[in-house]
């Protein structure tokens, strides 16, 4: 084998020619060892390959673009490029009333719609100054839906986690259980996703007939379903080999990068806003905050699956409390006529609309009720000026909603501080130095939802 470089210009050196055309080797046959040896010694610097894991990819949890610089199989540099799902939700909110804002905010992080709604509505209620006047039933129903959403979101994270590792059975098992939760959502809120059910002042509707019984049914089945899932995943040697020691981010790293949620809890710190800064009556519920010490992708998976158990515990307590409340007029929306949505909906022959009793009341009995109905539906309520930041513990981390009001019927500015957006910045810290195949479990362990990242 002869190493040849052709010189394009007189006086040029080997190095110039190599740079221009690349190294050229003449291979005559039976000399593979020499070629390999020459290649090794000629490699003066590492050849880095830049790979684009583009926005359309089955394993990137949505439209996330990753630009990876690889040295062989090792990732030397990972940059995430986002914005492929930017929807302008925050700007849209400025052109809608406060109540209509719920329908937009709910579609930000679409795996945890109830959390988006809760953060936004709680922020609005603090601006209105009614956070102490919410009816008890509304608080319990909110907690019920929030915890069911936590279960659904964790399952929606664990399922694709398995799918991205290539284990479709995990996906099918998780989806099997998630379907049951979506059935409950459909029964209670009317929709499987993007419910727009939590409104400023309470919730949109009361529990339907048979709702509590359906939730109880689910709670009976759920432990068995979670057990099946855990039997499949926890001790699975392939899963463990792919997630143990992967995507390591210890407490120092989490603090430096401002990471909260299951990633922080997998480092051993039991920081959960439901315990440290409780809202919606969480201080009255009994539940634990699961933590792990391993700081890796496997630890985060264990934290999530244990959180499902804790959420089911809270759901049980909510159901018991709702069942105890047998008073005849138990409001689920604030009774203040200037804020609470007026119409009590009912299903009539022509579809869903204000109930006949409500129409009789506003048309025949009370002029104020008619005025309130008219004003609330056309322009909505007015919120005193000011700004508020409300944070909730979403399944992904701390979800905050910063709302600014100028005294009008529309939000002046609403901003969602999404945990996925914040945590994706930690991806570089988790992946650099690891193998290419470890990037996938790393992303899946952060569990980003690109709708929340891009809003």
């Amino acid at each position: 084998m002869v190493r040849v470089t052709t010189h394009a210009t007189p006086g040029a050196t080997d190095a110039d020619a190599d740079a221009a055309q690349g190294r050229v080797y003449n291979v005559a046959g039976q000399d593979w060892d020499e070629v390999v040896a020459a290649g090794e010694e000629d490699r003066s610097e590492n050849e880095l390959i830049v790979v684009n894991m583009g926005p359309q990819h089955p394993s990137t949890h949505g439209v996330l673009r990753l630009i990876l610089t690889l040295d062989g199989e090792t990732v030397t540099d990972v940059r995430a490029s986002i914005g492929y799902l930017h929807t302008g939700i925050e700007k849209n909110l400025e052109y809608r009333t406060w109540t209509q804002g719920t329908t937009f905010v709910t579609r930000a992080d679409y795996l945890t719609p109830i959390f988006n709604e809760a953060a936004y509505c709680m922020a609005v209620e603090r601006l209105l100054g009614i956070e102490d006047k919410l009816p008890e039933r509304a608080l319990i129903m909110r907690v019920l839906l929030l915890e069911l959403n936590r279960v659904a979101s964790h399952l929606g994270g664990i399922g694709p986690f398995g799918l991205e590792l290539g284990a479709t059975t995990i996906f099918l098992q998780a989806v099997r259980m998630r379907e049951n939760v979506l059935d409950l959502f459909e029964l209670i809120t009317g929709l499987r996703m993007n419910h727009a059910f939590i409104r400023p002042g309470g919730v949109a509707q009361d529990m339907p007939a048979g709702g509590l019984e359906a939730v109880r049914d689910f709670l009976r089945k759920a432990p068995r379903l979670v057990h099946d899932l855990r039997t499949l995943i926890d001790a699975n040697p392939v899963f463990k080999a792919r997630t143990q020691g992967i995507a390591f981010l210890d407490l120092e790293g989490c603090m430096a990068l401002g990471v909260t949620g299951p990633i922080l809890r997998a480092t051993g710190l039991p920081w959960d806003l439901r315990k440290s800064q409780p809202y919606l009556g969480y201080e009255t519920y009994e539940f634990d905050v699961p933590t792990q010490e391993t700081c890796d992708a496997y630890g985060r998976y264990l934290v999530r699956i244990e959180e499902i158990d804790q959420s089911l515990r809270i759901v049980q307590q909510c159901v018991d409390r709702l069942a105890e409340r047998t008073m005849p007029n138990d409001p689920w929306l604030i009774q203040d006529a200037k804020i609470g949505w007026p119409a009590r909906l009912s299903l009539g022959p022509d579809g869903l609309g204000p109930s006949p009793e409500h129409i009789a009341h506003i048309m025949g009995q009370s002029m104020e009720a008619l005025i309130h109905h008219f004003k609330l539906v056309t322009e909505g309520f007015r919120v005193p000026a000011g700004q508020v930041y409300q944070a909730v513990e979403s399944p992904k981390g701390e979800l905050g909603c910063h709302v600014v009001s100028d005294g009008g019927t529309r939000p002046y500015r609403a901003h969602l501080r999404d945990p996925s957006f914040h945590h994706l910045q930690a991806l570089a810290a988790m992946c650099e130095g690891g193998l290419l195949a470890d990037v996938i479990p790393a992303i899946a362990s952060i569990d980003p939802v690109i709708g929340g990242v891009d809003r």
Partner: protein
Amino acid sequence: MGIEEKLPSGVLLTSVEKVAGWARARSVWPATFGLACCAIELMMTGGPRHDLARFGMEKTGSTPREADLMIVAGRVSQKMAPVLRQIYDQMPEPKWVISMGVCASSGGMFNNYAIVQGVDHVVPVDIYLPGCPPRPEMLMDSIFKLHDKIMNMKLGADRQDEITELEEARLKLQPLHVTSAINEAGSEL
């Protein structure tokens, strides 16, 4: 495409159309183009309860090079539109597009600067599926309608005639017949 495209009109072409249509409809491989909330419903449609695998759609064309059907599930932002077109161009013929959800069909509730108001601005759509998000059963219904369309799709010379017929029928559509008010806005129906 293949030799079936070059056959002259006649009994032979009709029989080939039937067989090809039947074969194509039974095993449509979707390109995973899940973007937003509709993607979650798409995933659930592949789950155990509503099982897309029964219709030959379990194998997802993760690479567009082996996909037949692009289900645009979710809102397409301005940044994503060129990517969408590129994926569509990378799919080999025959290919079909279902725009799933209102955001893909028309921009949905997001009538603003950031969202393409309907993916038919970017790719030709075969089936529009409304819903926010559409239930899995609705998605399956749209897939059945697409299967009907595929099974009855003609090939070669017959296809050209079919296209001309469809265009003329669409131009005569009532009661959405073009009025002067809409003409001023420059929209076409």
